[in-house]
Structure formats: C-alpha cells, structure tokens
C-alpha cells in the first residue's frame, strides 16, 4: 500500500506535485514519439527493465502495443530468433545499464549506434533512465503504476 499518498496509484501520486510530476510524465511520453528509435524497441526495453526489477505491475502495462509472443520471449531474447540485430543491441545495453551503468562497453554502445546513430544511443539512455526511475518510484512508494493501459 502506498505509504506517502494512501490509495493513490503511481501516476496519481506524481500528480500530487504537478509542477514536477507533469513534466516528468511529458518526458516519459516523449520517448514513444522519437524519430531516432522505433517505439516497439522503446517498449521492449521498458518491459525488460520491469522484468529485471521484478515489477510485475510495470510489466503488465502496455505503453505501446507489442505482439504477445514478443512479450513472452522477452526474458529469453538471447535465444529467440525473432529479435532483430537492432533490437538485440538495445536490449543488451538495457540489461547492462540496469545492473551497472558504468559497465556499458564501447562495443555495446557501438552496436546501438550502428543501427540508430548517436542520437539513438542518447535517446535510449535517456529513456532507460526515466523508465528505471518510474519503476523505482512505484516500488519505493508501493504505488501501482497505471500508465497507458493494461496488457491483456
């Protein structure tokens, strides 16, 4: 149960400090409208972070539609042939970032740049930071996220 704002979900809790919370939500939403990164990949990386944080509530969100089989394969994307080289590069970077941002290697960064350019790498790292923040806020507040909509 949310210990700061009783009965409020994560987004409602952020909205109780609108001068900052609304700005945060606008930045979050902007990552799904980038020309540098396909929104499918942005969503895959958000979902992978949710898995690594063991946040079932964040994994249940659907900010951008993905095919069900892609969601199901996400935890084992290394072994799934359906993920493209560009998707793999972003997912690998997301996993390392989640564990230790200082452990990202030049090769991992170059792999993302090869597919999405320098701006794509910057955008991905920005998105990972904000997604990670939203997930951590939900966990530390004990406030369930509501996001776009629940995945069926």
């Amino acid at each position, binding site marked *: 149960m949310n210990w700061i704002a009783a009965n409020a979900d994560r987004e409602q809790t952020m909205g109780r400090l609108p*001068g*900052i919370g609304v700005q945060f939500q606008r930045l979050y939403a902007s990552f799904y409208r980038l020309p*540098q990164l396909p929104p499918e990949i942005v969503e895959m990386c958000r979902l992978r972070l949710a898995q690594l944080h063991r946040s079932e509530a964040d994994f249940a969100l659907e900010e951008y539609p993905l095919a069900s089989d892609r969601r199901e394969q996400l935890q084992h994307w290394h072994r799934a042939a359906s993920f493209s080289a560009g998707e793999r590069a972003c997912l690998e970077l997301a996993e390392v970032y989640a564990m230790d*941002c*200082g452990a990202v290697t030049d090769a991992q960064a170059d792999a993302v740049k090869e597919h999405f350019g*320098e701006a794509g790498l*910057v955008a991905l*790292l920005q998105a990972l930071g904000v997604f990670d923040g939203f997930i951590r806020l939900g966990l*530390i507040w004990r406030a369930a996220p509501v996001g776009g909509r629940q995945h069926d």
Partner: protein
Amino acid sequence: MTSAARVSPPAGNTGNVIRDSALGIVPETLDHYLALNAAIWDAGPLGAAEVELARLRNARHTGCVLCQAVRYDVAIADGLTEDKVQVIRGDDPAAGLSERERLIVAFVDQYNLDPGGIPGHLQQALLAAFREDELLHLSLLVAWFNGSSRCAVALGGMPEAMPRLEISVPR
C-alpha cells in the same frame, strides 16, 4: 570506466550545459529535459540545499565524477557548506547531519540499493519528519538525478577526477 566519449556534442556553444552536451543531439527530448530539470529546483517545497544534498548523495551511488564535482550556486546560497558535502560523500553520513538530512541520505540510499525493500521504520521516520509534498519532491528529484546521472556515465568520456565546479541551474 571508458575514457572516450561515445557521442559527439552538437556544434556550437549556447552557454547552456545541457543544450551543449550530448543531450543536445536529441531535440525531441531536449525541451522536456530542460523543463523538468528547472522544475526540480523551482517547483518543489524542499530548499536548494536539501535538493543538492540528495543529488550529491545520489551521484556517489552512480559513480558520476562530473555530477560529484558540480555544486549548484543556489544550494550554496541556501546554506550548503563544503564540510557538509564531504560528510554526504563519505561512508558515515550520520555524523554531522541533522535528522532531516540523515533521512534524505537514507532515502537516497534505499532508492539506489533496494527501492522495493523500504522498511516500515524508515517510512514512519520519513512521514514524521517531512510533509507529503516534501516526500514527493524528494522522490521525484532522486529519480530525475539518478536517471540523468546514469545516462552521463553510460555515455562515456567521464574523467577519473574533476575539480569542484560551481554552476547555475541551466534553463
């Protein structure tokens, strides 16, 4: 840690440290970044010294050398001393800090190390010492600085050490 930056900053010099950084090559997020960063300093109830205390403690966790070297002038004007900064950056932050400051450090540490495991006694202590809007401000500023600091580290080019650098909030 890498010694070479992985991304080139935009050409030109606007004088704004965010616009002139690698973040400047993603115009679609830049204005949102600047607006949120300014709101963190301007639109919450915590004073600049407490914001800076949390930011610097967070930077210790992320290992961002640049973030640890920076001091925001508004925080210094609000009373944050370099002696206190050194306490915050140390292993024993209980020494020399007020109860509110110790709780800010404890919250930042919990956010970084185990956000889902926040114990009941820390929740109660935070609720006793801060208003709801102050706890929301603390939470959101830690989330913001944590993400932006980790982004800076992952973009590479971080020096081994930097001298103290006093700056204004970029707008």
